[in-house]
């Protein structure tokens, strides 16, 4: 285990060191201590390493991640895992707004709650939240899965495309063009897989699926007067 004290080493050196790790590095286990809510910790990683951040982080932790696993032993600030491509981010506490925004792939797990705009414009990332999520989550979500074991706030999935949302608790309101959908066998299997991967014990049959009603996809001549 390599330990980096962020207050001693500084953010740029820390990220530079992590960026220098290649696919065949022997130093696969890293620990960052004293994060003190700093921004952009462990951003832009691209190697199969595991980074544990011992404390709470600020903006954009684990942003643009590829291959790496980032564990945050605390709460995470706005934009955590923004544009994640692959790999895994696990947040032991709560996540602030726009978690995993525009994420293309990989998995983000939140053990606490996620705030507003969780998974906004998601493009293939899977997000599993053990608690609740805030308003405007998965706005314009294009693909990927958002799993919520608690409740969802206002306007879930507003103007979404093909992203899927599984919510166990209540949904305060659905956004424009988002609707409740049937839970078929294939969805139960998919959801069980996501819960297993996230290490969360929950029964897929207790969840409701939501997704796009697909009425905003194409220009409709009957709406011409509205423009």
């Amino acid at each position, binding site marked *: 285990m390599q330990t980096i004290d962020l207050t001693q080493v500084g953010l740029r050196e820390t990220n530079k060191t992590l960026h220098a790790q290649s696919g065949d590095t022997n130093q696969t286990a890293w620990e960052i201590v004293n994060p003190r809510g700093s921004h952009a910790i462990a951003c832009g990683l691209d190697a199969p390493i595991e980074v544990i951040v011992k404390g709470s982080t600020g903006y954009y932790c684990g942003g643009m991640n590829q291959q790496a696993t980032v564990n945050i032993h605390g*709460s995470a600030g706005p934009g955590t895992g923004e544009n994640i491509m692959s790999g895994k981010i696990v947040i032991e506490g709560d996540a*602030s707004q726009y978690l995993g925004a525009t994420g293309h792939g990989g998995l983000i797990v939140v053990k606490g709650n996620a705030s507003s705009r969780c998974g906004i414009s998601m493009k293939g990332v899977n997000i599993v939240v053990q608690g609740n999520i805030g308003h405007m989550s998965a706005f314009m979500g294009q693909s990927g899965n958002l799993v919520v074991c608690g409740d969802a706030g206002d306007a879930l999935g507003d103007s979404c495309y093909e992203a899927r949302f599984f919510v166990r608790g209540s949904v305060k309101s659905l956004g424009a063009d988002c609707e409740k959908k049937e839970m078929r066998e294939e969805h139960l299997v998919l959801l069980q897989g996501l819960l297993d991967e996230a290490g969360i014990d929950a029964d897929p049959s207790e969840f409701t699926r939501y997704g796009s009603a697909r009425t905003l996809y194409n220009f409709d001549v009957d709406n011409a007067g509205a423009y």
Partner: protein
Amino acid sequence: MCGIVGLFLKDKSLEPQLGDLLTKMLVTMTDRGPDSAGIAIYGRESNGKTKMTVQSDTPDEDFAGLDKALAKALGGDVAVEVSSTHAILTLPAGKTADARATLAEISPSIRVMSRGDSLEIYKEVGLPENVAERFKIDQMSGSHGIGHTRMATESAVTTMGAHPFNTGDDQCLVHNGSLSNHNSLRRKLRRAGVHIETENDTEVGAAYLTWQMQNGATLGEALESSLDDLDGFFTFVVGTKDGFGVVRDPIACKPAVMAETDQYVAFGSEYRALVDLPRIEDARVWEPEPATVYFWSHDTAPTTSEKAA
């Protein structure tokens, strides 16, 4: 952008450290607001008298002999305690309106920052570190205080455009965000007879709350109606004589983190601002909900009221 910090002490033994803790929180928020900074601090009861914080760009001229001139005009003892560009006036109770009128007459370059029994507001243009140093904020004690670092978007970088804004006796407001209907609301409030000094959007927010409360609303009710009447982005933190409150607009783009232990309740625009607080690792840390008014007071139990968006 802007940064906000707030600290409300439950444990009286921390009171001598309030200024020091708030200064550290404020300086951490420098990169959210390097233009100007300000702090409102509640402490030093004036024992039956009223305090006014005033500011002047030419303090040597304006504050010399001010105590005698005011004492003569108001009839009663007046103390003037100068701190850099600011001065704390201690006046006979109930004389703030007279004092304001007198100041406008004898020394029009003096600006009133705050009034109340325990509130003092210090704010200036410059880096938060330099502003805090100028007024020796770190040596102040008190029961609670709020601070602001400003990155101006809606109006000029001036002392009067800096936060906190005084909204009424012992009340103040800081703001992160931008109000988009401040011009029309300023016209409306001016027609209703409310004094608004600058073209700043937050001053309109502050004046709006003052106006609501003059018309009988409690601070909590005024904050709730602000959710209907103010258009734009805002996280507001308000200070009162015995507590502080937090409200975010329904969209809640502007960041906010709160922490609570048995010793204090703290607010920060980011978690970074809170990391030097005592035993922060054991605190309950959470993000305040949008369109919800939170309140902590030394006199009553904490309250939360949600307003339908």
